[in-house]
């Protein structure tokens, strides 16, 4: 064997080591990627199902999603439908609405596309729209499910990245989104649904803030306002149809 401490040996040794390591990792990463992607998709499906009030777990989420969410749409600010995904096929546009990342769309201004997930269950239609905003420190997001009248909240779900545990993070506690059920969203094409601290002035539109987390609560209000208002035009066209 060549001298173990010689420069050429060390150089060879490290080259081989790095190449082997990189090869092993690349194989593993490529091989496992589909599983990882699937997990992320299932998580998103679960969130959509939960916000529409459908009970689910990791195992049946995919099946349930397929059965309940019959249609996925993406609309722009003017209310025009830009892409449709139906019965497992993309029928209009290029990007499947399921794969749209709302946080990126919000930064796009006029070009932005907003996804809507249409859920048919027990003869009722529920529209689920994602929302995304900023809490006290970091991103907050969620889904709002809307009844057929396009105004009443059927269910909600929130999540966050870095709010304070016990305070702002309480938006994920099921009690908080449960308050939204049955509230009205729009009045005169304006989003009036909001989270308020203290006495409510319009019972139909308002939800109690999370105790001790004023900034997170305001963040939720702003998020609802910013995101839901993008759907006003589209809902108008739906109503006149």
């Amino acid at each position, binding site marked *: 064997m060549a001298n*173990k401490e010689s420069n050429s040996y*060390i150089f060879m040794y490290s080259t081989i*080591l790095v190449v082997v*390591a990189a090869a092993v990792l690349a194989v*593993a*990463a490529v091989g496992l990627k589909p599983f990882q992607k699937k997990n992320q998709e299932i998580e998103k499906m679960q969130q959509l199902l939960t916000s529409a009030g459908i009970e689910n777990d990791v195992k049946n989420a995919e099946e349930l999603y397929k059965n309940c969410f019959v249609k996925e749409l993406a609309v722009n600010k003017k209310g025009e439908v830009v892409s449709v995904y139906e019965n497992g096929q993309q029928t209009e546009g290029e990007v499947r609405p399921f794969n749209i990342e709302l946080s990126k769309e919000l930064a796009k201004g006029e070009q932005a596309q907003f996804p809507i997930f249409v859920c048919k269950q027990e003869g009722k239609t529920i529209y689920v729209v994602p929302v995304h905003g900023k809490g006290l420190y970091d991103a907050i997001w969620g889904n709002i499910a809307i009844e057929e009248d396009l105004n009443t909240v059927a269910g909600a779900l929130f999540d966050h990245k870095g709010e304070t545990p016990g305070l702002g993070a309480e938006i994920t506690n099921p009690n908080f989104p449960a308050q939204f059920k049955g509230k009205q969203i729009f009045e005169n094409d304006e989003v009036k649904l909001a989270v308020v601290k203290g006495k409510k002035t319009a019972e139909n539109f308002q939800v109690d803030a999370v105790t001790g987390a004023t900034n997170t609560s305001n963040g939720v209000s702003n998020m609802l306002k910013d995101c839901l208002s993008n759907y006003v035009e589209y809902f108008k066209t739906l109503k006149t149809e």
Partner: protein
Amino acid sequence: MANMLKLIKNPLSKENPIAVQVLGICSALAVTTQLKPAVVMSLSVMVVVALSNVIVSLLRNTIPSRIRIIVQLVIVSMMVILVDQFLKAFVYDVSKQLSVFVGLIITNCIVMGRLEAFALSHKPLPSFFDGIGNGLGYAVILIILGFVRELFGQGSLWGYKIMPESFFDAGYVNNGLMTMPAMALILVGVIIWIHRSRNEDLCEK
């Protein structure tokens, strides 16, 4: 065989990596708010220590001593990335809870410590058992912490409610402090205290 058994048994108490050798605390405490991530984390560390011990031990006669640390680092990182990819693929919810702490196994001093102190000078089989033993020693502390913190902090174990409803009716409340980082540190302090009062020779002067 008796030797192998000793390799596994010693790190459990007398040479416990956390309580006695003070290694690998960095990533240990943050993942113990619940039992499940604590167990998954322990398993991951065990796998990484055992397998990198074996690999380094197999290569021990070929590794040039000048770049030995870097070689070990590459091997450990490789194992950790593999573990991370597997967790993401098969136990997604836990891997989300563990977040960056899987990556931090790389800088977990237990791993590098065992490679330097044991694997470089021993045959693959003893190295493997040494890795398993140290992984178990790490696991013991993590599981105790995870158990106590989840039981008293959230009234559940492995995600299932354990505390009976009647307790809550009688005025029992979950101790929110248990889920906070501060309590993990104090609990480790208490574990060390108990451990050392039973093994007097471990006390510091």
